[in-house]
Structures are given as C-alpha cells and as structure tokens.
C-alpha cells in the first residue's frame, strides 16, 4: 500500500529550519462495525523549531486525526496505524513505550483544543488541573506549583490569577477557559504547542485576543506552534507556513504569504475564493461544486477530482504526485495552477 | 353444700397424689434452655395474647385460678387452694392460696382476681377473650360501658373470690384456666398502660428478665413461685427471627434446645426417618381440626346432598400425605384428643362414585362451578389444590382464591361471598379442652352472623337447643352425660355436613438430648411447644 502510493517527500521544508516534529508518510484508519477505512493517507508535514505552522482543511479532512495519532491519543481499537513515522526531536513517537510517551505529552508538547467549554474537567478546580501537570512532570511542592501556575496565568493575561486557581471551569467564560487551557499547556515550557482549532468556538473579538496572545507567547517562549484550523483567515494572521489537507491527504504546502497570493492546488484556490471578502464586493461567491468524499468512498485517483475544474482523466486514475515548486511551495496535483 | 366438700376432698387428693409428687421427684433444678421462633412474640399481656406462640409463654409468666395437669387436659386448681360450686351451678367460691407473690414482690389478693377478669371484660382492653365470660353476672353492663365493675364477682376477704353466674355453664372452670383469666397486678398494668404486654408482671413460674424487640426474650426463674419445686430451669431464652430450617440445623449442632416452630415441614421426612433423632422427637395430638366449610346459604351448598358429596369426594389420605403424614384423617369436627370425640363414627368414606350419584340426585349430574378460598401460606394452597383435583373428579370446578388471612376471614363473615373455605392456617385450635369450644362461634347460630366465624353459616335450631342444654349441665356428676350429649350433637351436625373435616394435625416437637421430661410435656395440649415449667436439663 505504502509503496504503491509513495510520493516524493511532500515537505517543502519551511525555511529549511530544523524540524521539531515531523510526520512521515503516516497512513492510518479506523475499524468499525461497518468495516475498516483509511482516514489518513500518507500524510507528511513538519513543524520547525520556533515557528508557527498552520494545518488547514475542512471538517473531516483528517487534520485533527493526524495530530491525535501523532500524540497517540486515539484509542486502538478502533484506530490503527498502517505505516509512517512521527519524529519528535529525533525520536519516533509511535515506537515509544506508553510511559515515555506520557512524559512527552504535557511536558514537551502541549495541546489546546477547540472546545474550551468542555476541555476542562468540570469537577476539578482550575488549580487542581494545573498543578496536576506539574505533579506529573515536575516534582514540585504545592506552594511552588501554585506560584508557577499563577505566573503562567498572569502571562496569559488572566487577572487575579491566584483566585482563579480556586475556581471551577463553569464559573469562567469561554475566553478565560481557553486562556487557562493555554496556560496549562505551557506550564512545563513545551517545545511545541499543538493548537487544535483554538478559536473556532470563540467569538470574533475573543478570537482576536487569543490569536494575539498566542503570537506573544510564541515569541516569548520561543516555542513552535502547530495551528490547526479551518479558517483561512486565522492561518493568514498567525502562520508562517501552511499545509492544506483534503480528504485525508496533504494537497499543498507553502509559505502562508504564497498560498494566499498564488495558490497552486485547485482546492486551495477554491477554498480561498469561496470566502466572501470584506474588501471587495462580488455578486456571486466562487463555489466548489459537490462535497468532500467520505473516507469510505474515496476515488482511486485524486480525491479532489470529482470537484475539480482542472480535472483530467489522469486525475481520476492516478494519485497525484507532489510537485515541488521551490522551497516555498509544493503541490500534490497533476494540473496545478502555475 | 356437701358435694362441694367432696369436690374439695377429691381435689386435695389429686394434688397430693401423683401429678405433683411425681413431678416433684423428677429431674433436678438448674440450667437454661434456648428456644427459637421465627415470628415476633406479639404480646405477653394475658388479656390480649391469643396466638399459639404467646399462649404458652403467658401460661408460664402468669397464673390463674385454675390450670391443667401438665401434659393432660385435666383441670386442676392453681392459685385456688380450693373451690366449691353451688348446687344450681351459679355460684363459684374460690379460696386463694396464701403467700402468692407477683414478680414485683406484692402479694396476690382476691381483689387482683376481680380486677383481672374485669379488665378482660372491659371493652377498652380490646381483649379477644372478652366474650368467653358472658355468663358472669353483670357482663352486659360492662360491655355496654355502663360500669367497669362486674356485679358477679365478689371478694369477701383477701383470700376469697365468689363468682355469680347469670346461667349455669359447665365450661366455667375451663374459662378460668384460660389466659384471659390470669391474674395481673393493677399497679403494673396502670404503670405500663398499653405497653403492659411488653412488660408483663405476673405470678408465674418465670419472670421476664429482658426483651429485645424482634431479637430475643429472656426469662429467669421466679424464686417466689408458689410451687416450690418448680420451675426446674433457671431460665429460658427465646431467640426470635430464626428460620425453622436454620433452627433445626442449630439444634442438630446443639446450639438450640427446642424448635419453637416445630420441625420444618420440608425437613420433616428426612429427620423423621433418621434413627439418630428418634429419641428427640415427640409426637402428640392437638386439639385441632382442619376442615372445609360449605356455605349452606349459598347454592348449591344449600343442599345437604351436595355437601355430603364434597365430603365423599375429598381424598383425605392424599391430603395428609401431601403434608408428609403430619396429621391424621378426620371424619368429625372434634379432634380425637377432645372429650366427646366419637371413635366409632365412620364418617363419610372416600367414594367419588357415590359422591357423583349424590350430586346427580341433587340435580347436578355435571357438577357445577364454585370457589374454594384459602389462606395463601404454604401448605394451604397446596392442600386446596389437592382437594380441587378431587372435586374436579366429580365434576365440581372449584376456583382457588388464595388470599392473605384478612380477606379470607372477611369473606367468610359475609353470607354470600365464600362458598367454600379451607380453614388451614386459620383453623380451630381449641382454647380449652371442652367440646363446647368447637361449637359456639364456628358451628352455632351465634356465629352465623355478618363478621362471625361460622363460615358455613350453619344454624340448626334443634342442635342449638341441645347445645344450650349441654352447656348448662355444670354439675360434675353430669359430666359424662354432658359429654355424651356433645358427642351426639357433633355426629348430628355431620348428618347435615356443613363441613368436610379433613384432618387433625399432629404435633411433633423436637428437642435437644439434654432436655428431659415426660414426653407429654413436649406435646402438651395447652402448652405449645412445651410445658416450660416442668421440663429440666441434664448435661
């Protein structure tokens, strides 16, 4: 399977910087009652040290699944990994014993999630949940831990941090909760922060706050961020490098600036053009016809072929190869836009 | 008056000769025994306690003017030192034993006797025994609430009680041996009020030491008991809430001395067949009859032929077998141990063919449908089913209605509700060993009223007259004749067949090897399961 569909290295290599996290040819799927299906096909991307990388795509394209797989947070069964590697700081995470993996999670890789309302345990105080991280990864006295927590809360712009520790999630607003999630993820000073749709559930004004905050923190702490989002605007605002996913595959990777100015893959282009823009007035929005194929009925060739305006017979038959334009852009398409 | 003296002499002779002397020489004092019961002991108030379990307990905690010789149904004076009856049978004079003390230390005097019986008769007490004393003069006034004093009881001095009856009654001495006539100290009754039943103070062989509700009752010897050689035991412990099956196992292990509830029916066959326990099981008759009533006011049981047919249809041997032969087949209302039982009477034989003929004669060649009521506690539904099958064989389709006791009793007390009732579980165990006790409420006209206990609604004027006559034959000289009259009455009743007598339950008591005493003490007709006063232990 892996050999047949092998593609040239999809990584264009953001800035040639040394990668901190890299997924290499990850193919995985789920077994269900209805049979098993492949969710991710040969997914490769990488996050360099100290940079923010975006992972964009519509719902169901596999962006969250890829990081959950990388972090080994998917229960198996039903999830299974067919092939690939997840290299973090030189080690393949997929080969680690669970105990070592545990020491990476929350310690060297922090994660924040889409739903700040539900991502915190409602039955434990903020303080407990934050201290827990320190208890697991650092052996600190309670007082030291509390200090560290309040510091971190203050850093994420939360007022009266000492009181917050005593509060429970339901007493806080969504924005605050997301800040707390961020603070919690950053407690151990991770090298990488995985932000899975961190602002999707938030209001625009709060989203702006959180994005600003992430930007500041990244500069302060010199960490890498993998930003998963479906919102091209968020990517444009916060990422230097972007991977676009469609139906379980990475279809394009490029510098953020490049991807918006000269999108190579028809899908990327369609996505960008289908958003209404504040700055210009158009009568009709550009649309992408049809729907994303489900994981159980993907075509033999390019997954996007059915919806693509530049589709050829080759597209229907063969999986497209990655075409590397330069170090700034690579596209998996038989007929990419120039 | 002369005859009174004869009675007295006879009685004194009785007292001096075998029962007491025999008992006095038998066994030694000391030791404590353990008895188990499943159900709670309801009350130990002699005016109220009226079930087989507390009946004999009360007898050992209290005493009355009269008692029975242990293990028999023969009357004997107890608190009475002597008594005399007037010629017309209306005046009874009792001389009390002197120096008898209540458990609280006070001496028992004649006014206590008066008080105790008045208390039983007083409606406020709600004594189920009240109605027994309706022959005492002034009874009606007390019942009507006009007075609390019974006109018919006089205490001329501290040791003498005189009863005046409104009509002669041959059973009166028996009635004084009933628990309801046992003597209670007024001050204690007033102290405890309605809770006297939980704090009984009497003058019996034992006194209550401790009662843990729902768990145990502990008795100790009454050192001041007026029979100095009794009781033999230092104490008795009742453990409450013990399953009969468990109790049996514990007895086998030696932890328990007497099975209060008897041998559990389910284990009966095994235990009975085990030679190891041969000496520990005592069998005896009871003053009990199990019977099916047929409502003579409801069709088709208004026809005596139908009732006779039912009598002939029921295979009583099979019924007895179903309860593991723990009974003997009955053919008349009276149990064999009861004076007046007719051993020569053959009754209705088991003969389905003839039963069918009788039915056809009565106009039911194809039988009919009816209902058989029964109480819903094992083995009664089983017995009912066995009879149901017998009835079905002659074409009577009886629907079994099994209910808890209350509704069955209620239905029996209505003239038109229950055509047939199997009496099991609610059946008649005699209060006192006299045949009259089997007539009045359950076969006499007085019981055939709404809410009454004559579930057959049988009322025969002729028999009623005979019964009245028999009851007034209080002269001891007529005793034999009286019994003969009763015998005749019950056989006559069987001609009308308002009942189908089924069986007389046998009593089986099992005791540990260390408990000794005459076998009759263990199947004492009035002390169930044992006569606590007279048994002893040998370790």
């Amino acid at each position, binding site marked *: 399977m892996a050999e047949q569909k092998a593609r040239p290295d999809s990584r264009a290599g953001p800035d040639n910087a040394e990668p901190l996290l890299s997924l290499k040819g990850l193919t995985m799927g789920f077994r269900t*009652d209805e049979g098993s299906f492949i969710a991710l096909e040969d997914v490769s991307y990488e996050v360099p040290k100290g940079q923010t990388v975006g992972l964009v795509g519509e719902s169901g394209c596999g962006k969250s699944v890829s990081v959950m797989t990388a972090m080994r947070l998917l229960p198996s069964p039903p999830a299974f990994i067919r092939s690939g590697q997840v290299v973090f700081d030189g080690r393949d995470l997929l080969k680690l014993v669970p105990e070592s993996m545990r020491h990476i999670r929350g310690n060297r890789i922090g994660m924040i999630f889409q739903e700040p309302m539900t991502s915190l345990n409602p039955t434990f105080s903020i303080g407990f949940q934050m201290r827990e991280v320190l208890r697991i990864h650092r052996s600190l006295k309670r007082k030291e831990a509390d200090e560290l927590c309040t510091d971190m809360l203050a850093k994420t712009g939360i007022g009266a941090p000492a009181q917050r520790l005593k509060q429970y999630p339901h007493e806080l607003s969504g924005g605050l909760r997301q800040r707390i999630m961020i603070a919690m993820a950053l407690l151990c000073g991770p090298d990488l922060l995985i932000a899975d749709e961190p602002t999707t559930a938030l209001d625009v004004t709060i989203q702006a706050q959180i994005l600003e905050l992430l930007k500041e923190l990244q500069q302060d702490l010199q960490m890498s961020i993998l930003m998963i989002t479906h919102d091209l605007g968020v990517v444009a605002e916060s990422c230097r490098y972007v991977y676009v996913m469609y139906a379980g595959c990475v279809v394009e990777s490029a510098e953020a600036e490049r991807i918006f100015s000269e999108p190579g893959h028809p899908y990327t282009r369609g996505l960008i053009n289908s958003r209404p823009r504040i700055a210009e007035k158009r009568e009709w929005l550009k649309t992408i016809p049809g729907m994303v194929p489900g994981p159980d009925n993907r075509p033999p060739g390019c997954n996007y072929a059915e919806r693509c305006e530049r589709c050829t017979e080759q597209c229907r038959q063969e999986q497209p190869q990655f075409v590397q334009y330069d170090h700034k852009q690579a596209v998996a398409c038989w007929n990419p836009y120039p | 008056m002369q005859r009174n003296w004869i009675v007295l002499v006879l009685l004194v002779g009785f007292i001096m000769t075998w029962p007491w002397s025999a008992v006095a020489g038998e066994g030694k004092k000391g030791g404590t025994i353990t008895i188990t019961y499943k159900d709670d002991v309801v009350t130990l108030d002699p005016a109220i306690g009226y079930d087989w379990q507390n009946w004999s307990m009360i007898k050992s905690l209290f005493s009355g003017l009269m008692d029975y010789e242990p293990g028999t149904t023969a009357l004997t004076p107890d608190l009475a030192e002597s008594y005399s009856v007037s010629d017309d049978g209306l005046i009874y004079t009792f001389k009390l034993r002197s120096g008898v003390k209540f458990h609280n230390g006070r001496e028992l005097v004649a006014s206590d006797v008066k008080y105790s019986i008045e208390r039983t008769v007083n409606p406020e007490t709600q004594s189920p025994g009240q109605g027994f004393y309706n022959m005492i003069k002034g009874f009606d006034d007390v019942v009507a609430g006009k007075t609390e004093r019974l006109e018919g009881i006089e205490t001329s001095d501290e040791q003498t009680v005189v009863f005046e009856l409104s009509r002669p009654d041959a059973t009166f001495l028996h009635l004084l041996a009933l628990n309801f006539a046992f003597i209670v100290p007024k001050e204690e009754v007033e102290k405890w009020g309605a809770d006297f039943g939980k704090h009984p103070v009497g003058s019996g062989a034992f006194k209550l030491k401790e009662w843990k509700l729902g768990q145990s009752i502990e008795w100790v010897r009454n050192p001041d008991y007026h029979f100095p050689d009794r009781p033999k035991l230092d104490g008795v412990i009742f453990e409450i809430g013990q399953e009969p099956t468990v109790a049996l196992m514990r007895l086998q292990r030696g932890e328990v001395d007497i099975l209060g509830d008897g041998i559990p*029916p389910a284990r009966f066959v095994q235990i009975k067949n085990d030679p190891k326990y041969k000496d520990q099981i005592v069998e005896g008759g009871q003053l009990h009859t199990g019977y099916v009533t047929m409502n003579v006011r409801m069709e088709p049981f208004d026809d005596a032929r139908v009732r006779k047919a039912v009598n002939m249809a029921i295979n009583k041997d099979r019924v007895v077998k179903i309860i*593991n032969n723990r009974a003997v087949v009955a053919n008349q209302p009276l149990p064999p141990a009861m004076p007046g039982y007719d051993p020569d009477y053959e009754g209705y034989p088991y003969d389905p063919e003839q039963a069918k003929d009788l039915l056809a004669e009565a106009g039911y060649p194809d039988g009919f449908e009816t209902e058989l009521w029964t109480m819903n506690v094992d083995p009664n539904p089983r017995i*009912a*089913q066995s009879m149901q099958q017998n009835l079905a064989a002659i074409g009577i389709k009886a629907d079994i209605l099994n209910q808890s006791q209350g509704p069955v009793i209620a239905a029996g007390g209505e003239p038109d509700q229950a055509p047939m009732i199997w009496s099991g579980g609610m059946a008649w165990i005699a209060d006192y060993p006299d045949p009259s006790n089997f007539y009045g409420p359950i076969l006499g006209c007085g019981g055939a009223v709404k809410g009454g206990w004559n579930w057959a609604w049988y009322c025969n004027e002729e028999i009623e007259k005979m019964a009245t006559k028999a009851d007034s034959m209080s002269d001891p000289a007529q005793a034999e004749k009286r019994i003969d009259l009763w015998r005749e009455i019950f056989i006559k009743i069987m001609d009308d067949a308002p009942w189908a007598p089924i069986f007389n339950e046998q009593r089986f008591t099992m005791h540990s090897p260390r408990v000794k005493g005459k076998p009759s003490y263990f199947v004492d007709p009035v002390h169930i399961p044992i006569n606590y006063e007279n048994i002893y232990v040998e370790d």
Partner: protein
Amino acid sequence: MDCNYLLRSFFYFDLPGIEFAVSYAWRKFLRKKVAVTAAGVLAVIILAAVFAPVLAPHDPYEQFFEGLTLQGAPLPPSAEFFLGTDLLGRDLLSRLLYGARTSLIIGVVANGVAVLLGTFLGVIGGYVGGFIGGAVMRFTDLMMAFPALLLAIALAAIFTPSLWIVALVIALVNWVWVARVIYAQTRSLAESEFIEAVRSLGASWPRILFLHVIPHLAPTVFVWSTLGISTTVLLEATLSFLGIGVRPPMPSWGGIIYESQSYFLDAPWLVFFPGLAILMLALAFNLVGDALRDVLDPTQRGRG
C-alpha cells in the same frame, strides 16, 4: 387537509424509509451475537409456550399418585418425570412448559398496558404541560417514590388475584418508568428545533403531536415493550413467590418456587429449574431489549 395526502405521506412515502430503517436496524442487531442468542432463547421459550400441549409429557394439572413418595415427598428427576415432580406429585416439566404461557401472557399484557399507560401519561406530562401536565408528572413522581412491591401487594390484596388481575396490578406498578422516560423524551422533543421549525410553518398542535412527536417516541416505546417485559416477568414471579400471584393450580414459575421454597434443601430441582427458567426469560428479554435500545434508541438509558 386531504386525507389522501396524510395516507400518502405516511404509507407511500414512509414505506421505503421504514423498510430501510428496519433493515438497517436489523442488520445492526444481527451483528450483536449475544442479542441474537438471546433472541433465540426467547424464540425457544415462546415456541415452548405455544406448543406446550404438544411438548408436555404429562397433564400439568394431574396430581399423580405415584408422583409422591409414600411420605409425601416429591420425586427427583427420573425417566418418568424428566425434571421430577412437585409437592403435589405433578410433573414439573409439564408445569414449566405451561408456566411459560403464564409468564409470557402476563409479561406481554402487563407490560403492554404499562407501556400504553406510561406513554399516554408521559406524553401528556411532556407535551401538554401546564397544570394537567404538571399534575400528571407530580403523580408520577409520587408513584416513583412509592415502594413498588408494597403497592403490588396491597393491590393484589384488594383485587383477588387471577391471571388478568396480576397483569393489571403489575401494569399499575410498572407504568411509572415508562412515563418518566417518555416524559423526558417528549419534553426534549417538544423543545427540539425541528418541532420549532414545524411550529414556525404554522402547524397546529395535534398535527405536531401526532405526526411529529409521536413517531419519534415509537422506538422508545418499542424498546420498552421488550425491555419492560423482563421486569414484568420478575415481578410476576415475585408476586407468585409471595403467594399473591395467579390462582393455583395455574402453573407459574414463581408460583412453583413459592410452593416449594421450604423444600429447597431436599428438593432443589423445584427451585432450580423454575428459577433458571425465570432467569433465562428475563435475561433474554433484557438482552434483546438492550440491543434494540442500542440499535434504535441509543440515547435512552434508565433503570427498568
């Protein structure tokens, strides 16, 4: 409103969909091995009950003379009486087979009545609301707090027990749970967006209730119609065990145990076989009902 449309919309349009839903549910159900096994057991019991007259080796009511020992003890399993005899000398196997009828009839009838009653009151409580709905639900709360077995015992004492009375008594005790579940579901349906949508189209309340709310309750009702039977069977057995079940000599599994419970040490087969039968029946209904719940109505979970 033309009836034609109603009919069409229900039968013409709905049919393919229902077929689809049913076949989908069916396939999902078949994948559950345990449930299929349980359904098999159920089928066996139902067949045994239906064909009891054919299958039973003896008359279940016949008290055989040779069915008891001379001392009146029941016989252990033998060639003549496969599962032994009961305390009246009747063939236990035959009584068990006929007893299955009792259990099933009471199970189905009692539970059917309970489900109907519960659904009716639940819908009133959940959809009508206001004073009536509130009163209905307060009453349900009350009955919920009433010790069920005590209620059944008292009811059984008031009405002389018979097959149908026992069924009724059980129904009167059991409807409460159905009412609670239906109430909760109706409430959430009544507040759901698609009902809001239909209301915004201008639909009248009977239309909403009968065409939109009630069809959604169908799976729950169906699930409870199955799941509830196990509770009913157990309750019937328990009532019989306490001596207030169906009228003897009608065979009932609980009744057999009731009659023989004190003999269980010496005649354990009299407890074991009927006990096993009750267990199997209740278990089968439970497993099938639970699987149906998973398949049809995964949101409902409660104590039956």
